[in-house]
């Protein structure tokens, strides 16, 4: 085993995946190291969910290599990935809505005390404490998790992954279905997870959510990477442009400028201000 500091926690090189004769993903390189946030951006159908399924162990890649701490792996189930410290939080599959918070928190990794019995006292107390550590003060860990807000639900899932010793956290569009304020809350937890020393892979289609928290950015388009940059190498505007199909957007901006003088750039300015605000609230 190499020292974890030498090799990135998660490294993909030239990874590809086919579904029958459909090429879902090609030539993807990606690194996520401890204490870093790697953002994967792309529009719908860009291959983000295929990528996440490979990392999470739901699907196996057909091409390239997938290394965890420098060691090549081929997971056959999410359980395998979890055992290697890679936890995934899905946008729509994060929690079981009708179950109490504490049951959700420990689902699949229940703490037991013999005869198949669960250590309920411990689990309830821990769930409450861990949520509090994430800044969510639960009135009652017995309330069904479906009664929490969307942002809080994502946070339970994140807190759960962190508690169970995840070294790498994969977040699938955690901010997609959320309002501005709740999205801000989730972004704050992403930063918190990074500061705790986790490697975070943050999947999103919103560059304004990605840019403030990300250290690296992988932009996918139609199953292929069209850019892989560190934060120093790219500005927010470049990221937005790249993400939206580069040249196409520039063309659109010109058209807008020509048609309604100035209104296009004003919209861009507002977007940028919104993102700045998010960063400050951190």
């Amino acid at each position, binding site marked *: 085993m190499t020292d974890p500091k030498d090799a990135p926690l998660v490294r993909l090189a030239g990874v590809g995946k086919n579904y029958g004769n459909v090429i879902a993903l090609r030539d993807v390189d990606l690194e996520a190291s401890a204490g870093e946030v790697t953002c994967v951006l792309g529009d719908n159908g860009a291959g983000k969910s295929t990528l996440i399924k490979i990392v999470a162990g739901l699907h196996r890649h057909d091409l390239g290599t997938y290394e965890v701490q420098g060691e090549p792996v081929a997971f056959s189930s999410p359980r395998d990935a979890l055992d290697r410290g890679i936890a995934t939080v899905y946008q729509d599959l994060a*929690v*079981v*809505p*009708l179950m109490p918070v504490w049951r959700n928190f420990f689902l*699949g990794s229940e703490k037991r005390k013999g005869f198949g019995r669960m250590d*309920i006292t411990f689990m309830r107390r821990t769930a409450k404490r861990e949520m509090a550590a994430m800044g969510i003060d639960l009135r009652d860990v017995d309330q069904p998790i479906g*009664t929490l807000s969307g942002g809080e639900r994502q946070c339970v899932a994140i807190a*759960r992954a962190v508690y169970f010793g995840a070294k790498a956290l994969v977040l699938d569009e955690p901010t997609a279905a959320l309002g501005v304020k709740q999205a801000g809350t989730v972004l704050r937890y992403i930063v918190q997870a990074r500061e705790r020393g986790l490697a975070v892979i943050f999947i999103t289609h919103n560059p304004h959510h990605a840019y403030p928290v990300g250290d690296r950015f992988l932009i996918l388009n139609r199953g292929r990477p069209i850019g892989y940059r560190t934060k120093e190498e790219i500005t927010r505007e470049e990221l937005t442009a790249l993400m939206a199909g580069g040249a196409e957007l520039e063309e659109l901006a010109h058209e807008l400028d020509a048609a309604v003088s100035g209104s296009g750039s004003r919209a861009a300015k507002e977007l940028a201000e919104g993102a700045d605000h998010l960063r400050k609230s951190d």
Partner: protein
Amino acid sequence: MTQAVAGPPAAVPDERLARESPLRRLLRRPEFGALLGAVAVFVFFSLVADAFLQADSFSTVLYASSTFGIMAVGVSLLMIGGEFDLSAGVMVTTAALVATLVSYQLTLNLWVGVAISLVVTLAIGALNGLLYIRTGLPSFIVTLATFFMLAGANLGVTKAVTGNVASDSVRDMDGFESARKVFASDVDVGGVNVKITVFWWLLFVGIATWILLRTRAGNWIFAVGGAAGSARAVGVPVARTKIGLFMGVAFCGWFSGMHLVFAFATVQSGEGVGNEFNYIICAVIGGCLLTGGYGSAIGAAIGAFIFGMVNKGIVYAEWNPDWFRFFLGAMLLIATVVNLIVRRRVERSA
């Protein structure tokens, strides 16, 4: 009591918890609506039927409830796990026929037949589960198919083996008396004869409740019924859990089948058709969601109790039984609506 689970954690007192009264906690239990219904039905029949309140009569009501209730235990767990088993009714008959036919034809001790029946019935349950997992078809369809196959096999095999449509009487065979003590005897409780099935029923409900609320398996059952995808994503073995649930129904079917054998000695091969819905009704009255992920074994037991009370209450009240099904339908409707309202109110105020 299972209420202990819902009690506040001792370690972290929170001033806001005081706002939740014990009443509110009770209201939030899935079986609360059913409990209200049971009290209402009980009071109702106590008023209209004189014989209803006698100890003997109550014991009869409990017996009727237990024969539904034992199956409802397995069926409710399966429903919480998000699935149906339409073969549950005829599976009881299959279990009974296997035990009697094997023992009688091979002239074996009945306990051997009982054991073989357990193996066969559990295998049928496992087959239901495997078919469901492998085909990906809704369990409704898969178990409908096994329902028809079992109903046909019950008749066909019995006819082929015995030449009649009922199994031969096993009353005078070895092991009958000892097995009858286990599966179909009477227990004297303060001068009242109570059927042993009532105690088995309570035991099974207790075990099921313990599994649901206190064990990892219980957590998994709620999870696979509530959101199978989420459960799989966090490492819950969804297929194994569901197959286990189908086998749980099969176990209850086996037990009910053994009661048939040792209470009546012969088994009519056409019996059991239609009962599968009674079990589902018990579970639904008891607060199990048809869509899975929510419910309790205690609720299903209360559902079975309501079912038994209505079933026998009409006899005690000497009413025209033409209306029995009407009452049953009305009860089902009221119970589910009450459940719905209670749950919505609690969720809104939470």
